[in-house]
C-alpha cells in the first residue's frame, strides 16, 4: 500500500497533537476568562498543572484493586493511539495501514470505558455517580458521531480519514454538499458533549451535582491524575482534528518539503483555534443543562446527522 504520509510523519503528527493538546485547553480557558472580564491564567497553565502532578506522589484508595494504577496509562495510550489516525499537516492515506475513523471512535470509546471502570473500581460514591452519568450520555453521543462520519464517508467512498480529507481536496465552503451543512451542524451540537464542556458537562468544577468527567477523576492522584488530564486534553484536540479533517480539509498541503509541512501546520492551528473559540463562546453564553434535558439537546444533533445521511443516500 502506497501512501502520502510516511510512518515518520504520522508519528510526528501524533506527537504534535499530544504536545499541543494542553495548549488548546489553556487557550479556551484564557478566552473564557477574558469574556468574563478576568485576567485569567496564562495559556501555558495546563502544562504547569501537568508537570506539578507528575512530580507528586500517589495516594490510592484501600478498596481499589491492583488494576487501578494501570487505568491512567491505558486511557492515555488509547487516546494517543487515536491521535495517530488524524491527519494533521498533510492529507492522504498513511503509508502503513493504521486504521480508519471507526477505529478512532472505537479507541476514544475504549478510553471512556476504561475511565468509567477506573471510577467504579475505586469505590467512591462520586466516581460511581460520574461513571453512571458518563455512560448515560455516551450511548447518545457516539452513534451520532458515527453517523456524521458516515455521512461524509459515503460521499468519499472511504472511512480512512487521510484519504477522506484528500478526496475533499482543497475545496472551501462553496463546494459543500447540502448534507455537509447538516452534518456540520450536528457536529457543532455534539462538540461540547464530546469534549466534556457546557452545556453537557462542566470541566471547571468539582461540585458533585454538575460534574461528569471530573467526578471520575476524583480518586486518581499524582502522576495518574496527570495522565488522565493529559488524556482528556489529547481527546479534545483529537476530536477537533476529526472535525477539521471531515469538514475543512483546506489546509493540509500536497506540497512536499518544509514549506508544505509548515503551511499544513499553520492551517491546522488556525482551524483548531477557530473551533476552540467556538467552544469558549458556547461555554460562556449557555448554562449547563439539567441531566434529563441533555437527551433532548443531543436529539437535535441526532436528527441533523440522520437527515444528513438521508440526504446522501436518497
Amino acid at each position, binding site marked *: 500500500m502506497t501512501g502520502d504520509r510516511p510512518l515518520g510523519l504520522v508519528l510526528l503528527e501524533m506527537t504534535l497533537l499530544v504536545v499541543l493538546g494542553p495548549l488548546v485547553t489553556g487557550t479556551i480557558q484564557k478566552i473564557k476568562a477574558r469574556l468574563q472580564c478576568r485576567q485569567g491564567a496564562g495559556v501555558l497553565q495546563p502544562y504547569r498543572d501537568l508537570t506539578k502532578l507528575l512530580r507528586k506522589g500517589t495516594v490510592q484508595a484501600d478498596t481499589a484493586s491492583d488494576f487501578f494504577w494501570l487505568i491512567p496509562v491505558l486511557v492515555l495510550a488509547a487516546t494517543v493511539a487515536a491521535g495517530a489516525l488524524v491527519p494533521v499537516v498533510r492529507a492522504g492515506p498513511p503509508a502503513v495501514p493504521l486504521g480508519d475513523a471507526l477505529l478512532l471512535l472505537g479507541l476514544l470509546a475504549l478510553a471512556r470505558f476504561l475511565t468509567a471502570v477506573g471510577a467504579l473500581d475505586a469505590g467512591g460514591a462520586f466516581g460511581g455517580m460520574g461513571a453512571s452519568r458518563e455512560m448515560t450520555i455516551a450511548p447518545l453521543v457516539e452513534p451520532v458521531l458515527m453517523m456524521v462520519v458516515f455521512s461524509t464517508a459515503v460521499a468519499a467512498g472511504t472511512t480512512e480519514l487521510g484519504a477522506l480529507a484528500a478526496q475533499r481536496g482543497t475545496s472551501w465552503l462553496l463546494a459543500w454538499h*447540502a448534507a455537509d*451543512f*447538516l452534518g456540520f451542524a450536528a457536529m457543532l451540537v455534539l462538540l461540547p458533549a464530546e469534549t466534556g464542556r457546557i452545556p453537557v458537562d462542566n470541566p471547571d468544577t468539582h461540585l458533585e451535582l454538575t460534574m461528569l468527567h471530573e467526578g471520575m477523576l476524583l480518586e486518581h492522584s499524582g502522576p495518574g491524575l496527570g495522565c488522565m488530564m493529559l488524556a482528556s486534553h489529547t481527546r479534545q484536540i483529537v476530536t477537533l482534528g476529526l472535525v477539521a479533517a471531515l469538514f475543512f480539509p483546506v489546509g493540509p498541503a500536497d506540497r512536499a518539503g518544509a514549506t508544505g509541512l509548515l503551511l499544513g501546520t499553520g492551517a491546522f492551528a488556525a482551524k483548531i483555534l477557530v473551533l476552540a473559540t467556538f467552544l469558549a463562546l458556547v461555554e460562556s453564553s449557555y448554562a449547563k443543562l439539567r441531566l434529563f434535558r441533555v437527551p*433532548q439537546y443531543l436529539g437535535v444533533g441526532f*436528527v441533523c446527522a440522520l437527515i444528513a445521511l*438521508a440526504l446522501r443516500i436518497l
Partner: protein
Amino acid sequence: MSAETVQTIIDDLGALLLFTMILIVAAGQIYRAIYAVAAQSLLIAIAGGVLATSTGNKDLWVIAGLTLGVKATLLPWVLHLVVQRMNVRREVEPVIPVAATLALAVVVVVMSFHLSASLGSVQPAITGNALPVGIALTLLGVLVMATRKTALTQMVGLFASENGIFFTAMAVTQGMPLIIEIGVILDVILAALVMAIIVLRVGSTVAAYIADLDELRG
C-alpha cells in the same frame, strides 16, 4: 449563474432551512422558536433572490423583499411583542415530549425525500431538492402546530408551514404570479394580527390564556 450553481445553492439553502426547522421543533423556549423562524424566513428571502437572478423573473425580487420585510422582521417582532406584553410562560408546552416530536420529524423528512424520489420523469423540471425540503417544512410546521398547547407556538408552526409552501412554490414553478404571492403574505399578516389581538384581548379581559379555557370543558 449556471443552472448547476443555482441547484447547489438551493440545495444548501434547503439543508439550512431543514436545520432551522429542527431548531423550531426542538426549541424549549418560545423566544428561540421565534428567532429560528425569523432565520428561516431570511433564508427563504435569500433563496428568492438567487432564483430571481437565475430566472430573470422580476416578480421574485418583489417577493423576496416582501418576505424579508414581513416574515423575517415584522411578524417575529409582533410575536416578540405579544410574548413581552402578555408575560406568558417562556417555556414551550408540548403535548407529547419534544424527543418524540423530533423522532416524528425524522420520519417526516425521510418520507418526503422518499416520496419525491419516486416522482420519476417530472423531477428534472424541479430545482434540486426543493420539493422534498418544501414538503418536509410544510408537514413539520403542521407537526409543530399539532404538538404544542399555546397559541403562540402554534403560530410559529403556521409561519414555518407557510415558509415551506412558499419555498416549494418559488423553486418548483420558477415564481408564481405576483398577485397570488402578495395575497398569501397578506393572509399570513392577517392571521398573525388576529392571533395577536385575540391573545392580548382574551388575556386582558378574562385574565386567562386560551389554553387554560380547555380546562373548563366538562
